[in-house]
């Protein structure tokens, strides 16, 4: 009897494998094989040159040596990091504030649902369309400069050239990232805050703590795991920054190559004439950075469950 039952269970459980077949076959073909070949190409000197290809010739780790001894990898990493920071600092500050308000039961914001809907909206907008919009609005001949002139902030006929200065270009990219992501972060932090034991707040209230004290002494420390999660996942997202600076600068990373991100660098090597060697090596570097950051997230997440 038990023998029969066991057999039956096993025969059910084979469906576990069967149902996973589509996932793993697809993953193998569309992700894993490309991933392995990408890494493989990193060890070759191999690029397309018009109607002919150069290579592949085995190149050892020379592609990596070239990447790390050249200035570009460092420069583009810094660009990416700086633009991420410009967007992330206001993002985390605003999100913490809004998250605290939304999760504060006593504040009873009547329109909270409407606010949430609106602040999340920019996250769903096509980044390329949004960038094109910003490009046209902040253009030398665009309406933002029209406004600045009408208000006599800049002289007539001499627009402020947003895309000509490193700071303003990077700030625009950062600002767009802020706009697109702070709603998402707010909702994550809010959920985290709602998960905090309400009795702690009540106790604090009895002790006469001010809202500011409650925020810094209770909310923030208890929120630490989810904050780390938000920071690291945002950093992983930041590493993939592409659409906004690509469209804003038409892929040129102007001014003075100060808005070229790591993925734009990768894109330069794999669109048009593909440079398999350099592109492959760069992909490995990006993979390792993301991997390290992901391990941190994984650690933090599992810690929380314990």
């Amino acid at each position, binding site marked *: 009897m038990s023998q029969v039952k066991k057999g039956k269970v096993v025969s059910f459980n084979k469906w576990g494998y069967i149902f996973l077949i589509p996932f793993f076959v697809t993953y193998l073909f569309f992700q894993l094989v490309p991933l392995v070949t990408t890494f493989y190409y990193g060890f070759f000197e191999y690029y397309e040159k*018009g109607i002919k290809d150069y290579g592949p010739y085995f190149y050892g780790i020379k592609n990596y040596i070239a990447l790390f001894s050249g200035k570009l990898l460092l420069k583009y990493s810094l660009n990416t990091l700086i633009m991420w920071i410009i967007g992330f600092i206001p993002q985390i500050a605003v999100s913490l504030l809004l998250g605290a308000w939304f999760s504060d039961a006593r504040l009873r914001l009547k329109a909270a649902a409407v606010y949430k809907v609106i602040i999340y909206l920019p996250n769903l907008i096509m980044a390329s369309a949004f960038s094109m919009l910003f490009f046209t609005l902040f253009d030398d*001949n665009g309406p933002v400069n029209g406004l600045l002139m009408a208000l006599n902030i800049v002289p007539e006929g001499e627009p402020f050239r947003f895309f*000509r200065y490193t700071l303003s270009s990077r700030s625009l990219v950062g600002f767009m990232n802020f706009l697109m992501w702070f709603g998402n972060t707010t909702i994550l932090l809010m959920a985290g805050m709602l998960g905090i034991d309400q009795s702690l707040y009540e106790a604090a209230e009895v002790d006469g703590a001010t809202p500011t004290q409650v925020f810094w002494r209770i909310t923030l420390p208890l929120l630490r795991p989810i904050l780390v999660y938000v920071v690291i996942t945002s950093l992983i997202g930041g590493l993939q920054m592409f659409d906004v600076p690509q469209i804003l600068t038409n892929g040129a990373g102007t001014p003075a190559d100060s808005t070229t991100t790591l993925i734009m660098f990768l894109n330069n090597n794999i*669109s048009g*004439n593909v*440079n398999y060697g350099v592109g492959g090596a760069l992909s490995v570097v990006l993979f390792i950075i993301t991997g390290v950051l992901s391990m941190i997230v994984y650690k933090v997440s599992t810690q929380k469950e314990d």
Partner: protein
Amino acid sequence: MKKKLLSVLLSTAMVAALLAGCNKKAEESTQPSETGSIVPGDAGNVVDVETLEDTGDTLTIYVWNDEWKDFFWQYMPGVDYTKVTDEDGNEKFPLEGKLGDLKVVFKQTPSTDGAYQKSLDDAIKNGDDMDLFLVEADYAKKYTIDGVALPLGELGITNEELADQFAYTQQVVTSDGVLYGSSWQTCGAGMIYNREIAKEVLGSDDPDTVQAAVSDWDKFEEVAGKMKDAGYLMTPRASTTYRVFSNNVSTPWVVDNKINLDESIKKWIDMSKRMVDAKQTKTGDLWNTEDAFNKNTTFCVFGPAWYFNFCMGYDESDDVESIAEKGGWGLCQGPQAHYWGGTWICVGANTDNIKTCSDVVKTMTLDKDVLKKLVEEQSQDCNSKELAAQYANDPNFGNKILGGQNPYAIFSKCIDQIDVSVMTENDQYFNEQIQLAMDEYFDGKLSYDDAYAQFEQKVKEKVPGLQ
């Protein structure tokens, strides 16, 4: 000056070839060219056109847009097609049809981001059927080589038949002295100036007077100073003049696998820096210059015939009357001759329909009746000295935007002087990147050395293997 002399010599050589051709025609037109020296316009060994044969059943044509495809259906005798309706409800010429018994298939890939070149590369690498393909000047050299395209002689096209074409259109598709393609059009360009401003500052808007005032770059800069004093910009952007200088280089971008900066480009950099510093022009996007077209702010731009209708804000339906609508522009050659744009037809080396290909190239680029129709019905500048001379003197071809001035005379004089013998296959990258980098130098954002280093780095990224 030396350049001009060379051009004059070249066109003299052309005339000589033309005369020689006429004489020979009576004798034997299918014999190989007997002129010893290689001049632009050599078809190579000419085969007897009667020996050509088709073996395939499909004529595959690579194009990047509708322009020539539409000409083909309209002017190639023996075609059979039905128009199609696109999603927006517009009637369009189809991508497929018939030419005699042959099936015709257009493979269309847009040229943005090098996608069209990529489609050619793939077809060549894979050995796909490619009977005819179109190229632009920027990258023509990549494909006008043995094994990719056929020399015109192998299509049975003779030097005599080609002699009426303008020399520069042949240089673009000449490799190792042999012609690999042919074009129906020329895209000569000139200096388009604001008549009102010319009258005010130079005292006259007569094309000859204006031309005399800007006949070389020193004078051009002098006028720029006067314009500045009168409160006008000389050109809308520093890059406005770039094409004129880059058309007049005497050394290629790459020499011995090293990047080479030609004197003419250096001259453009120095002049533009001075002009930007003196506020005689501005930095920035070449195209975003509507100000210059709607208000009297800017003296001149440089452009070809298509520039008039396309870019200068000629739109009577909107509520702003642009300078173009008032016929307020004039045209002269400017400090140096240049051209802008153009499409060439090449025959794939592995074509299986060589007879039809030969037919198409002859009909669509050399047949005078077709060329006339292209001028009169499609506003093309045709690649025929004879016809160009006729149109230059035809009062019916005055241009509204130019206040009735006939542009043909100036354009055809201009293209007669163009020498583009030093093009390379990657000119496009070099020209784009040097302008981008130098714009930041003009702006004071980068030092000259930094800007040049940025240019070098960007070009090397796109063209690996450069020193």
